């Protein structure tokens, strides 16, 4: 394998590590379409889903171009097997209740914003352009989820208890956000990728600050789950993919 070909495979993998998070979270949020707790949040969550899906398309189109062989964004989205999806475990967690939806969104948005902030300066022009476009949208997502964390945490006794339950439960998936795969390490060396482990500390301090403001306790886990970024997912992933892929699997190459 020539070094350029190997590099392009690593870059492709690196793109998926970022894009699959947006893709799977978009799908999770899309499930809420018409099922939000009230009209405004229903619209907000599906708008966020749409932003993430749009960002995913830009990344997948780029990855498809690198993959060659006439591959398209749809092949990447719909025709991979579970082990080939590189999203972190956090984004595939179910919409258990509104507290979980907001908790998952908040824990991801803070990370996502920090990642894009750095990715804007990537030496890869396409990734930098996608990041510059996306960060404007993600700043709205972050504001939305942060506001709701405070509203629910500092709301009624019941909303506080539910929000606390979700944060406590989802916390064990936060450490994986900063886990570096081989593709990420290789791309950092190239000046293309971002050393995400570098902003772990500031992530936790920013998240903790908002949780405290929301009168929520910051969990003190010793144990964290990981695996998604290496393709080893939780049981929820299979159900997501079944929903997402059945049309293309049943009627290959079908067009809308």
């Amino acid at each position: 394998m020539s070094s350029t070909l190997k590099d392009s495979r690593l870059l492709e993998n690196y793109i998926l590590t970022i894009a699959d998070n947006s893709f799977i979270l978009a799908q999770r949020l899309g499930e809420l379409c018409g099922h939000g707790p009230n009209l405004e949040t229903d619209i907000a969550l599906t708008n966020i889903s749409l932003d993430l899906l749009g960002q995913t398309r830009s990344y997948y189109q780029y990855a498809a171009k690198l993959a060659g062989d006439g591959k398209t964004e749809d092949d990447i989205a719909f025709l991979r097997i579970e082990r080939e999806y590189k999203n972190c475990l956090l984004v595939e967690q179910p919409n258990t209740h509104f507290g979980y939806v907001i908790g998952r969104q908040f824990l991801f948005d803070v990370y996502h914003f920090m990642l894009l902030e750095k990715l804007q300066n990537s030496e890869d022009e396409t990734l930098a352009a996608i990041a510059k476009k996306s960060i404007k949208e993600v700043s709205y997502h972050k504001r939305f989820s942060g506001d709701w964390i405070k509203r629910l945490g500092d709301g009624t006794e019941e909303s506080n208890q539910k929000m606390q339950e979700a944060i406590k439960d989802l916390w064990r998936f936060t450490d994986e956000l900063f886990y570096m795969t081989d593709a990420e390490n290789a791309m950092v060396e190239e000046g293309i990728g971002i050393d995400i482990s570098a902003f772990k500390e500031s992530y936790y301090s920013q998240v903790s600050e908002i949780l405290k403001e929301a009168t929520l306790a910051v969990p003190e886990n010793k144990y964290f789950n990981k695996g998604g970024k290496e393709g080893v997912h939780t049981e929820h992933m299979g159900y997501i993919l079944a929903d997402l892929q059945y049309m293309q699997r049943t009627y290959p190459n079908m067009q809308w």
Partner: protein
Amino acid sequence: MTLTETNIEKHLIPVLKTVSDPEIPVLTVLDLGVIREAVEEDNIVKIKLTPTYSGCPAMDVIADDLTAAFAKIGKKVSVELVLSPAWSTDWISEDGLLKMEEYGIARPLSETHDKDVLLGEKKLVKCPQCASTNTHLVSQFGSTACKALFKCDDCHEPFDYFKCLK
């Protein structure tokens, strides 16, 4: 912020003016500032289009509408989506902003003011119906990702506010 240069050939402008945003039909693609380049080469009109928001479904429709508009005068179109530089609400023309207000959508405020109103800290968004600034935020996301939902506390009309994007 300076307006990034666009490269639009003059003779194509009349046709471009007939293509409007499917969500806000009073705005043409030129008002919206999404056409970054339009040049004709060998009877093919090459257009560079920049999305307002990444997932904006209007972009596909706009691309189809551009193709249809030029087909009427026997020209083929090739549309390329460009992401960089990223679209900003600063690119909406003044004429476009006026039409938007007449249509019932409040125009984007400056970045700082936008943050203030979306956090509910200040009342600055002007009601497009009665021009009062005694308005409040109902939802940060409105009928589309680019808008937020507001309500006027004087005339009690709900309305869309076009969020600042920079």
